């Protein structure tokens, strides 16, 4: 039985097309449609319910050491109010999940994980927890919305002062009163666009949602569903767990080197990551040059040779063309390389292009 987020009634009232996703009932789109929602985020602003994401809080004198041991990035020296992205590896250097870590203060970190992996992550992390560190799952008590798009700052400024907003990308302000609702506001997102994510108490989620939608109306803010969330992250070439990252496909293959610190003290997956070098496959971008739309799990051919597989693909609304992400050998992963993708028995011509497809 799927769970409802605190905003479920709002999605129904707005005419959202509700689908089960990662154990939750969420809108895939509103009556505006995926393309209009996607374009709103690129040109004005969009509001997403991301309350399905999981939130785990790590506290205690050994919290930092635990994060450094369980995750590939290095959290030493983070300032309060900083956010850092990290993969979490299994022993073989594949991926358990990818997540973001908020440093609230010394010995207190908020870790935000993918909804679909939350229970698996919590079990994995509990199993590997050592020393004086507690982990608490607060997911059910939190509502989270993402306000994304170039107009998102001007919208929030109608509700809060400039000094209340996080200035730098991947930073946050822990307690901002937004129309009387206490929120954690971070400059993060999954769209490749300027924007914020706001966390508040679950019970106040609907009021925050209504307030933001009403405040942003004039600026062109519209509610957006999972469909646009996926096309936006794909244009921005952000990996999605279960697609570009899996138990087998690790962060090295995905090209997430910026978040892998092999030089730090030993951590889970370090030996596995090192054993994967040199890499046998790497993540690439494909642009469809023929006719058609490439989707996930489709075979890639170079002549008669099976060269790899796609992991995500769609029509990219802002770019106006079909794009995909895929894995190819480093030898084949050359910009401009011509390949063909088997789209339900039909060969569709594509070429390798640099990632991201879209950069603001």
């Amino acid at each position, binding site marked *: 039985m799927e769970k409802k987020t605190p905003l479920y009634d709002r999605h129904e009232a707005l005419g959202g097309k509700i689908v089960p996703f990662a154990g939750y009932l969420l809108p895939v789109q509103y009556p505006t449609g995926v*393309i209009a929602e996607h374009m709103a985020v690129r040109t004005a602003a969009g509001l997403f319910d991301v309350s399905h994401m999981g939130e785990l809080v790590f506290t205690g004198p050994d919290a930092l050491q635990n994060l450094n041991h369980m995750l590939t990035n290095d959290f030493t020296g983070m300032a309060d109010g900083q956010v850092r992205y990290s993969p979490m590896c299994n022993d073989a250097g594949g991926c358990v999940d990818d997540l973001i870590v908020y440093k609230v203060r010394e010995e207190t970190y908020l870790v935000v994980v993918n909804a679909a992996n939350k229970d698996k992550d919590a079990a994995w992390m509990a199993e590997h927890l050592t020393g004086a560190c507690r982990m608490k799952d607060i997911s059910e008590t939190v509502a989270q919305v993402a306000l994304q798009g170039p107009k998102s700052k001007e919208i929030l400024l109608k509700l809060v002062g400039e000094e209340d907003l996080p200035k730098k990308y991947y930073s946050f302000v822990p307690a901002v009163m937004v129309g009387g609702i206490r929120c954690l506001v971070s400059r993060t997102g999954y769209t490749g666009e300027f924007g914020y994510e706001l966390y508040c108490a679950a019970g106040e989620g609907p009021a925050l949602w209504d307030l933001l939608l009403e405040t942003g109306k004039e600026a062109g803010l519209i509610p957006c569903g999972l*469909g646009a969330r*996926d096309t936006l992250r794909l244009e921005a070439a952000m990996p999605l767990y279960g697609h570009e990252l899996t138990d087998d496909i690790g962060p090295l293959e995905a090209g997430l080197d910026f978040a892998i610190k092999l030089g730090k003290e030993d951590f889970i997956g370090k030996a596995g990551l090192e054993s994967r070098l040199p890499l046998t496959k790497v993540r690439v971008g494909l642009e469809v040059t023929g006719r*058609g739309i490439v989707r996930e799990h489709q075979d890639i051919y170079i002549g008669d040779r099976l060269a790899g597989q796609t992991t995500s693909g769609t029509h990219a609304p802002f770019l106006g063309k*079909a794009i995909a992400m895929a894995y190819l050998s480093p030898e084949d992963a050359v910009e401009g390389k011509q390949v063909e993708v088997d789209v339900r028995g*039909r060969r569709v011509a594509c070429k390798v292009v640099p990632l991201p497809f879209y950069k603001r």
Partner: protein
Amino acid sequence: MMNTPEHLSYTKSHEWVLFAADGSAKVGLTDHAQDALGDLVFVNLPQVGDALTCGEALGDVESVKAVSDVYSPVSGTVKAVNEDLLDAPEAINADPYGAWLVEVEDITDREELLDAAAYEAHCAQEG
């Protein structure tokens, strides 16, 4: 509110058919279908002269999210395809009953077709 013109015939798989006096037929997707599919961004159509078999896929349409087969309501030969749709698949969303996909001639067989009222009842039943 769903739009279901009285003068068309319908399949349970959400295609519409318009028979002409000469026995040929135009085939398209219903308003219900385009609404359920969402923004269409690609259509894959057969070629003129291709043989179609009723109940089998004649092509497919893709929304941003997914691909769906379009089933032929009749058996026959493709007389014409609506090539405008190749560059403007969104016309199906805007005007589902104007945006025909294929015209079929030499029709030898047809699906069990529904009239407008029966089709609406079928959609209501599907939920």
